[in-house]
């Protein structure tokens, strides 16, 4: 689905990336620990997180995350918005808690970027 559809489903506010709402997304990963994101998330996924500092943008840049969804009604810090604009990474914000955010997206066809953590993890 498009990021625009994600925005509708989550009744989300767009903080960064009004002009990027037509990008396609299929998968997501949710975490508040960036090293877990770095270990498990995949390029092109949505990042669902409760963090608001610029490291969510740095992490997303490193991994080529498609867009960041900030949950629980939090707002990105001003320096986070500036960095996301510079690196062209969309940030949306939703009032839903992480569980609801994930559930609502899953119900509409977004799946986890990985299903389980397997013993033979892929590092590419």
């Amino acid at each position, binding site marked *: 689905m498009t990021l625009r559809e994600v925005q509708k489903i989550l009744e989300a506010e767009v903080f960064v990336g009004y002009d990027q709402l037509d990008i396609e997304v299929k998968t997501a990963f949710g975490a*508040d*620990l*960036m*090293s*877990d994101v*770095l*270990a498990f998330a995949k*390029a092109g996924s949505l990042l669902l*997180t409760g*963090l608001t*500092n*610029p*490291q*969510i943008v*740095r*992490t997303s*840049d*490193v*991994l*080529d995350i498609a867009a960041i969804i900030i949950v629980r009604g939090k707002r990105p810090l001003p320096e986070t918005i500036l960095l996301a604009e510079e*690196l062209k990474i969309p940030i949306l914000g939703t009032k839903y808690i992480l569980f609801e955010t994930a559930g609502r997206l899953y119900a509409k066809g977004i799946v986890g970027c990985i299903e389980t953590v397997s013993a033979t*993890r892929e*590092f*590419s």
Partner: protein
Amino acid sequence: MNSHETVVYENTFPVEGKSFNNAGQVSTQVKALLQKMKIPIKIARRAAIVTYEAEINICSYADHGKIILRVTPEEIIIEAIDEGQGIADIEAAMEEGFSTATERIWRMGFGAGMGLSNMRNFSDYFHITSEVGKGTRLKMIICIDDKHLGKQ
């Protein structure tokens, strides 16, 4: 690893210790540079991941440090060198989940204890040395072509 081959790019990036003011800036730069060099995205991404984890550890634990990036036609060599507290038990620190992160670091989204194992897992060669009270040195190599070096 054949470090005598032609270095096509080399640069040293200073990293501010014990501060998140510019945390991640070097990694963003490294990734952009590698993409500009037309290095395949999957390879550039792995190099960016290990650089970022190393950079964040300097920002978290060291007094100050630097990251050296060297690129040859065959490999990306990343060294992270810092001065600071060092690591007493490297084996324990390498374990997934081991962390001495403080509140300040958690608030930034770090302290899962995954950083060093991520660095080892996403690189083809990984070497760490550390001296308590002096500092830590990391060397990581990522092969550009698919002839992997085998993990160490």
